[in-house]
């Protein structure tokens, strides 16, 4: 079979099993778009801005575990995609991004719509390729998918000069079944000796703590984690990226940890004597002050990326390997071994933890005459039975969604944790909704974030995506305002959003439904009414309390036991600071 480069590219995607290609056409990729036009296997989703193409592919990948695929043109197409590529890179999301490039002969001549896409994306991709020989195109695509989806996943860029897709040049097509690369052999299986040492150490713990992260979701190890945690009876806290891997409603779950983690999770981190980190990378928003991180703990760390081990926190037992396999081996040792967890010490530990829990640190003012954003999230949980796919943008609303939705399953919580990209939520929700047309997909956002990719309301109409947009509208860039209140004596520099659009009319002008909710009394009924419109995109403009803050909070650079708590919590067993509240 002889095909042109453009046909090879499209055919390779089909042979790779790609369902959706998120993209935007332009001069350098016109040959490819022509090849797309002449087939039905790979469905192209036309976004309204290349950033949204990458976020949509990213959302698709996070929800399905399959790589997201993007096609953009050269120059501004590639640069617009960079934010989404960096977002995926920071959260280790498998993605293949194909960027058009000017013809090989004019590369380097400052040609129209030329940028050095390989150079620009190099620091925010797992790897990138420039195709210089059309006979290597299919193999390069195979390599890109292989690299993106194995080991610690990540985005891979393939830069394709226009002459590589020339319809006049036809060559034999063969898509390799598999590729091997002598320079890339990711470690998959954890070291058995280390695993045994780790299990032995875990069973000596008097105040154990399990800290799990996004690696459990990416590594599809939620079942193994649940077995592990339940067998041991130890408390577990999850990172922002890991939510859902272990059910939030389970009594052993202490909720999220870190800057906006629960009182009990952070205190237990600080006081534990053995910590096991599972698919988590000791991010600065999690650790707080490094010097006072888990001061009394021996630390075990499971991660597939050797460079994550002892990067910021030195660990005692590192295990490099795929989380699922390592946990399976640990579970086997636990079930077949003779040693049991220390029951008496553990009961004492739970007593201490339950006293911390009694602070009820997540409580908020439930009698306010304003709509409380936390309440809105709780109602969304109730209406959707806790089973929706929730995407979010970045800011206060993101933290409230993470804190109050209560994720019971993995792959349901889709947010930009590492890069913190505003504008992520809506396009990510498009990717999720395309993957799961029957599922309830909600985008929790703010009036600031939603405006960063609001043009995608048009894409949602084109493809009939019935996303529910929960805009917690406090007329402030809320997280910026919160920091300015705490650390800059209420000098609200550029954090107030003036001249906001009428979001209801805006939604309507895009052909969707808009519902404004201003009174707490209407909140439940109006949300229920909107969610009942299964086949329509509904934009909820929820006018919330302007000055609500996210609690608890650990200031940047402070330790886990230096939390600021909400004034609406219960009694404190110790003496944490409340002066900010």
């Amino acid at each position: 079979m002889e095909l042109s480069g453009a046909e090879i590219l499209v055919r390779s995607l089909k042979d790779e099993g790609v369902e959706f290609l998120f993209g935007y056409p332009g001069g350098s990729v016109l040959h490819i778009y022509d090849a797309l036009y002449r087939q039905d296997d790979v469905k192209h989703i036309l976004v309204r801005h290349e950033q949204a193409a990458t976020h949509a592919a990213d959302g698709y990948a996070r929800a399905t575990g399959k790589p997201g695929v993007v096609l953009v043109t050269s120059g501004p197409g590639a640069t617009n995609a960079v934010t989404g590529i960096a977002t995926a890179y920071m959260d280790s999301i498998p993605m293949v991004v194909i960027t058009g490039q000017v013809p090989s002969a004019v590369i380097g001549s400052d040609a129209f719509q030329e940028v050095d896409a390989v150079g620009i994306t190099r620091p925010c991709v797992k790897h990138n390729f420039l195709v210089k020989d059309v006979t290597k195109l299919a193999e390069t695509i195979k390599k890109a998918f292989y690299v993106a989806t194995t080991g610690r996943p990540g985005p891979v860029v393939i830069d394709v000069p226009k002459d590589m897709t020339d319809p006049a040049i036809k060559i034999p097509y063969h898509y390799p079944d598999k590729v091997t690369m002598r320079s890339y052999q990711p470690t998959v299986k954890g070291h058995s000796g280390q695993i045994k040492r780790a299990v032995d150490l875990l069973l000596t713990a008097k105040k154990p703590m399990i800290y799990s992260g996004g690696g459990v979701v990416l590594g599809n190890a939620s079942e193994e984690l649940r077995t592990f945690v339940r067998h041991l009876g130890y408390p577990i806290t999850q990172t922002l990226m890991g939510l859902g891997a272990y059910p939030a409603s389970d009594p052993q779950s202490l909720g999220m940890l870190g800057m906006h983690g629960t009182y009990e999770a952070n205190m237990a981190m600080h006081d534990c004597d053995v910590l096991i980190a599972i698919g988590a990378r000791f991010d600065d928003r999690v650790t707080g002050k490094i010097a006072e991180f888990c001061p009394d703990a021996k630390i075990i760390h499971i991660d597939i990326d050797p460079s994550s081990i002892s990067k910021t926190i030195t660990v005692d037992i590192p295990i490099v390997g795929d989380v699922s396999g390592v946990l399976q081996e640990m579970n086997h040792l636990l079930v077949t071994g003779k040693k049991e967890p220390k029951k008496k010490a553990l009961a004492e530990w739970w007593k201490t933890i339950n006293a911390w829990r009694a602070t009820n640190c997540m409580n908020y003012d439930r009698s306010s005459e304003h709509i409380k954003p936390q309440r809105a999230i709780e109602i969304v949980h109730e209406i959707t039975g806790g089973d929706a796919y929730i995407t979010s943008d970045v800011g206060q609303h993101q933290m409230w969604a993470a804190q109050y939705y209560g994720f019971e399953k993995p792959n349901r919580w889709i947010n930009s944790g590492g890069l913190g990209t505003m504008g992520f939520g809506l396009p990510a929700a498009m990717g999720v909704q395309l993957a799961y047309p029957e599922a309830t997909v909600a985008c929790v956002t703010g009036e600031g974030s939603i405006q960063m990719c609001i043009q995608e309301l048009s894409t949602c109409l084109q493809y009939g995506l019935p996303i529910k947009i929960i805009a917690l509208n406090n007329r402030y860039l809320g997280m910026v305002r919160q920091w300015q209140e705490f650390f800059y004596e209420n000098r609200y520099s550029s954090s107030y959003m003036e001249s906001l659009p009428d979001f209801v009319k805006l939604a309507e002008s895009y052909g969707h439904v808009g519902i404004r909710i201003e009174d707490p009394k209407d909140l439940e009924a109006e949300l229920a009414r909107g969610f009942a419109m299964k086949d329509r995109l509904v934009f909820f403009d929820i006018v919330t309390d302007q000055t609500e803050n996210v609690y608890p909070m650990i200031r940047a650079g402070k330790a886990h036991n230096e939390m600021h708590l909400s004034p609406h919590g219960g009694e404190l067993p110790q003496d944490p600071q409340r002066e900010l509240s």
Partner: protein
Amino acid sequence: MRHIISILIENEAGALSRVAGLFSARAYNIESLTVAPTEDPTLSRMTIVTDGTDRIVEQITKQLNKLIDVVKLLDLSEGPHIEREMMLIKVKAATMAQREDVKRLSDIFRGNIIDVTPTTFTIELTGSGQKIDSFIEALAEHKIIETVRSGVSGIARGEKSLQV
């Protein structure tokens, strides 16, 4: 501590920029970096001299290993090794006294005078980075017109080797 890291890397366009970019993005030090193809034209050998605490050097080696194009890596400083650097240095040698002294110093350091004009000598000198530094120091009384250093390349002693 100073470390000499040897890398075998796929000989592809952009390989050097991946390594250099890693060092700048993560704020690691590079004292010198040399790169050239090996006997196998698909592979390049790179020698990087860097400086950092054990923790930083461990991260440097891990991050380098993580680059998809890096095939193999060895921290030569972890075992017995040989390092060599080559320098070309042009020194003013106009008077008889200057010419005699420069020639004498060059001989002491086992340098070769490879170009001569009525007013200059150009000397080729090979050795460890330290020896080259010492030679430059020894020439302090003379006017150095130009120095060109190749950067360090290194190899493990004995049977240990870095190969695919």
